[in-house]
Each structure stands twice: as structure tokens, then as C-alpha cells.
């Protein structure tokens, strides 16, 4: 990927929260790129820091208690890390927007759909009410809301979960942002609705060239949608790869464990046990020394307990944070 094709480039993102037991670093040195019109996945279990990464990029981490710092967050030539909150507000909703997990709680129950879906336009453009209404109607058609005219003046509770999520996506896309961050956009939905929403997001990428950061815990969604994938564990990226590389040659033991533990709907029931990763995700306030995954890792070596591995380049843009792939680790 040449520099011109890169839309977002995040370097060394760190997010800390003050707690009663001292500061806890929830996102620790996250770096990745998103190409124009690409779909990039952030996948991990609860507590891995994937949602906080997204909120940090959007400038939506409440401070205090949170502090976000980064070497750079370059979105199309502008370093978001250097913007003050007013400048950031002008970017948000226009150049980068976000779709949240819970379509019920993230819509305002006392505003009609046209009011809230049109709000980014009211803020970022000088369109009048009529033009905004027209734009919202078009957007409702684009995201496949049936009878779009009848849905303009209704309240969120009058819509089903799938329709609410479509409206959220319409709101995210109404200013034609270059980047859409979708945080578990289908987790609260049924599978048949999920399939519709995912198909819609792919179609929008095709049509408008919107790049998408897809945050999910579901490796099935990653496999269906993403071009590149970042696997997160305890606040760090532990593996970064193209989607085919990741599924064909998972290189971090955590990724391998995750892939092995998914029950596959296409596979026969076996008498054998499902593979699982022993233990639980570590407490971020009491991280183990060395590699954060070593207490759960079947391949742990002495060095893993002592020293934290760096992301090692395995070629072809495939990187893994594991001593198994590091020269120093091989020597040890």
C-alpha cells in the first residue's frame, strides 16, 4: 500500500484510565493503518481494548478519568492527535463517524428519526430543514428502510432493532465520511438481520468507497467482511495480517486458540471436546510480567515470562507479537 492509499494511520495509541488502584492502561501502543475503501477488523474478547481504541480515535474517551495519547493519528493528512476538542468536533460526524452496538440505547428516544439522523447535516452543513429532510429520505432508501417516508417522523421505539441499526448507519453515513467505525454493529441483532446489515455495509463500501473499521468478537464476521485484521489481547495488537493470511496461517498462539475454539456450523458434531483456551483474560491492573498471554499459552518458553515480545514482521504485512517468531526468542 503506498502512502496515498492510506486513509488512517495510527501510531502508538495509548489510553489510560485513572482508577482507585492507580492508572490502568487499557490500550497500550496500538498502531495500524486503514487503506481507502478498505474494511479493517479489530477482533478480540471482552476487555481486550477494541472498543476503547475506537472511542480514542473518535476523541470520545471521557477525560477525566481517561487520557489518550498517541505519536500520531493521521486521517487523510491531518493529525487528529494534535487537534483541540473544537477542531475534533468538526471532524466527527463529517470525516469519521461511528455506529454503536446498541441501537436502542444509542438513539435519543425523544427525538424523531429525521431529527437525529439529520443532526450531523444540521451541524456540519448549512442546508435548510427541507433539504435535510430530503437527504435523510434518500439515505433511508440507500440503507434499505422499507417505506422510508413513513419512518421520518416516528420515534426510535416504533422501529424494530434491525431498522434502528439501519437508521444508525444512515446517520453515520449522511455526511459521507471517509471512515466509518462500526463497534459490534450487529451483536444485538438476530442472524438473519445481521446478514442483511453486513451486506448493506459491504454495498455502501462498494458504492461510496467508505473505509470501515469493523470491531467485533465474531471471527465469522471478520472472515466474511474484512480485508485486513488486527487481533487484540489485553490492550495490545498481538497479530496483524490480511484476512486470508490470518485464517490460513494464524501465527500467534492466541489467534490459533481463538480459531480452534469457534464451533463451526459447517462441521459435523464430533465426540471430541471443543478446543478451548485455558484460563481467563488477565486483569489489566495486574498484568503478568513478560508476554501478556503466557499464562494461558501452551507454547510458553522461559523468555515469555521475562520479556515482552514486540510485533515481529513475518513478511507480506503479517505481524505477530510472539517470541516464537522473534530471532531473540529463537536463540533463547
Amino acid at each position, binding site marked *: 500500500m503506498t502512502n496515498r492509499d492510506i486513509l488512517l494511520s495510527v501510531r502508538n495509541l495509548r489510553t489510560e484510565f485513572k482508577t482507585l488502584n492507580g492508572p490502568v492502561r487499557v490500550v497500550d501502543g496500538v498502531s495500524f493503518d486503514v487503506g481507502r475503501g478498505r474494511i479493517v477488523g479489530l477482533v478480540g*474478547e*471482552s476487555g481486550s481494548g477494541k472498543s476503547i481504541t475506537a472511542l480514542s480515535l473518535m476523541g470520545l474517551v471521557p477525560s477525566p478519568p481517561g487520557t489518550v495519547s498517541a505519536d500520531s493519528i493521521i486521517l487523510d493528512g491531518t493529525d487528529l492527535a494534535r487537534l483541540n476538542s473544537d477542531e475534533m468536533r468538526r471532524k466527527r460526524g463529517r470525516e469519521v463517524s461511528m455506529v454503536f452496538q446498541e441501537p436502542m440505547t444509542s438513539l435519543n428516544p425523544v427525538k424523531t428519526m429525521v431529527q437525529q439522523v439529520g443532526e450531523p447535516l444540521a451541524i456540519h452543513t448549512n442546508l435548510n430543514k427541507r433539504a435535510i429532510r430530503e437527504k435523510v429520505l434518500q439515505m433511508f432508501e440507500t440503507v434499505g428502510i*422499507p417505506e422510508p417516508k413513513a419512518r421520518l417522523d416516528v420515534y426510535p421505539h416504533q422501529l*424494530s432493532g*434491525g*431498522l434502528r441499526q439501519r437508521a444508525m448507519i444512515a446517520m453515520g453515513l449522511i455526511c459521507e465520511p471517509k471512515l466509518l467505525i462500526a463497534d459490534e454493529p450487529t451483536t444485538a441483532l*438476530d*442472524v*438473519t*438481520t*445481521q*446478514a*442483511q446489515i*453486513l*451486506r448493506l455495509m459491504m454495498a455502501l463500501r462498494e458504492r461510496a468507497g467508505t473505509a470501515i473499521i469493523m470491531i467485533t*468478537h*465474531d*471471527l*465469522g*464476521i*471478520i*472472515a*466474511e467482511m474484512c480485508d485486513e485484521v488486527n487481533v487484540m489481547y489485553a490492550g495490545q495488537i498481538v497479530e496483524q495480517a490480511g*484476512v*486470508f493470511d490470518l*485464517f490460513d496461517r494464524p501465527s500467534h498462539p492466541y489467534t490459533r*486458540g*481463538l*480459531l480452534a*475454539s*469457534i*464451533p*463451526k*456450523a*459447517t*462441521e*459435523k*458434531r*464430533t465426540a471430541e*471436546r*471443543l*478446543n*478451548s*483456551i*485455558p484460563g*481467563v*483474560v488477565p486483569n489489566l491492573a495486574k498484568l503478568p510480567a513478560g508476554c501478556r498471554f503466557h499464562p494461558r499459552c501452551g507454547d510458553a518458553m522461559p523468555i515469555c515470562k521475562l520479556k515482552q515480545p514486540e510485533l515481529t514482521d513475518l513478511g507480506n504485512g503479517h505481524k505477530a507479537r510472539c517470541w516464537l517468531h522473534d530471532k531473540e526468542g529463537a536463540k533463547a
Partner: protein
Amino acid sequence: MSDVLISTAGLSKHYPVGTGFFRSQHKVIRAVDGIDLEIRERETFALVGESGCGKTTLGRVMLRLIERTEGAVHYRGQDLHALDEPAMRAMRKKLQIVFQDPFASLNPRKRVKDILAEPLRAHAYGTRAEIEERCGELLDMVGLRRQLLRRYPHQFSGGQRQRIGIARALANNPEFVVCDEAVSALDVSIQAQVLNLLRDLQEQLKLTYLFITHDLSVVRQFADRVGVMFLGRMVEVGTTEEIFAKPRHPYTMFLMSAVPRPDPHQRNRERPLLTGDIPSPMNLPSGCRFHTRCPFAQAICRNEEPALSDRGGHTVACHFPLDQ
């Protein structure tokens, strides 16, 4: 394997709802509508369907945690609704449930030992010492250390809490356990641990499971037979093998094809997708409840509701079952 443990006949649960001005119009939501089902001893029967299809309600009506509107539940030939209060109470030892949300289903103000002791005390299990011993045994069974008995639920992770929920259900040696989305709230790596535990326990304790879930991938790996529900009706029942390889009801087929597959090489496969939304359970479509979304619907589907009928060992409620 073929002895029926629990069965239902025409089981229904209808909820009256008031709508309109001053709730003056009375309507009925048919959450569970005329279900005939047989679950055999020591099998895992999975109940799948989308939210609002009535699977949770069915599970609870079968345990008589909710009273039925019509129909019957037979447990080892005994009509559960014919039992009086004390007899039903005694019967509850054999019928247990594991709930979905491990954060909401354990009392935060009780220690683990009190949570586990409660069902034991309710059924006069024995002396204090015997109960204490049994609680320790239960924790062993679900793979937690006995020393944790004095802890409170908030000191455990989601997966550990679910183990405690399972231990509580097993306290009085049940025969039939309803697992209502028991692993849905857990991360995949933890989900696999809990599924393995459930499978081991089934083996050791000769349990029969009714496994309620919306996650079809789990069903494939875990269940012997599957029942698919749509808007309060059972639309298809068959062995896991048959349902996954040759779904006969169009709804089952669409449900299967909507599941994302964790293999990027299959992303371009042909995927028929459903359009539209589930009809409101208050205004059920006439005829087959699925006809408004079904691409194969004919005139008869709009007028006549198909009954579940046996089509080669695998029952389907459809006028035009798929032939694959």
C-alpha cells in the same frame, strides 16, 4: 436412548395485551402456540429461533415456571399440570434450569455457599454439615476450587459465574436441565470451556438437556436433535445432521445461510438472504406464519396453516418443503 423423558401436547402460552385508547382493545400474543414435542432420555435437544419466537417461553412452560394456557406436559408419563403444589415442588428437584445472564442470575449479596445451599435446603437435603459437603462437591464438579465457597459472585468472571449457575442447577441431582442461552454471554474461548463442562456432566450424571440458543454454530457441535421455532410454532424438527445438511423448511434454510462462516475462502459462496422483518406476533399473518417472507409461497400458504408432518423421520410444517 429412545425412551421419552418429557413431552408436550398442544402446549400453548398466550399473553393478553391491551392496546389502543385506555388499553380498550384486547389482543393476544401467542408466544407459544400448540407445540407437540418429545425429548428423549439423555439426549441434547436444541431449540433454535430468532428473538421473540417463543423458545424461552416454551422452556419455562415446560418446567411450569410459567403456567400454560392450553395443552399438557408429561414427564415420564406424569402430567405435570395434574400435580398439586407439594407434588410439583418435589418434582422440581428433577427439573432444573441454567439462565443466560451470569451477572443477573446470582444474588450479589449471597456467598457462593449460600447460593448453592439454597436449593438443598429447600428440598431438605440433610444436616448443615452434609449441605456444606455437597456444596464443595458441586464446585469440584464444575471445575472450581472449594476454597471459593466463601466468595461473592462479583469476585468471579463471567465463565466462572456460569459454572456456579450450573452447580446450583445440579444441586439436587436433576434429570432434565433447560439451558437457556447458557453460553451466549460468554467469550468464545470461555464458551468452549463451559460447553465441554456441560458435555462431561451430561455423560457423568446422565442428564437430558433442552438447549435453548440462537447460536447455530454451537448447536451443530453440541446437540443430538434440533427444533426450529418461528413465531410460537415449531416449523421443523430433525436430527442435527439432517437439519444442517438438508433443511426442509425454507425458514431453516435461510437461518442457516445467514450464519457467518469463519473461513474467508467461503465468502463468495451463494447465500440466499431473507428480506424484511419478522411479522408482529400481535398481528400474525394468515395461513403459514412465514409466508410474508417466503420466496416459495403459493396461494395455499396464505390461507392454510401447514401442520407438522413426518417427511422421512424429519418433521416439517410446510406446504412445499424443500427437496435437497
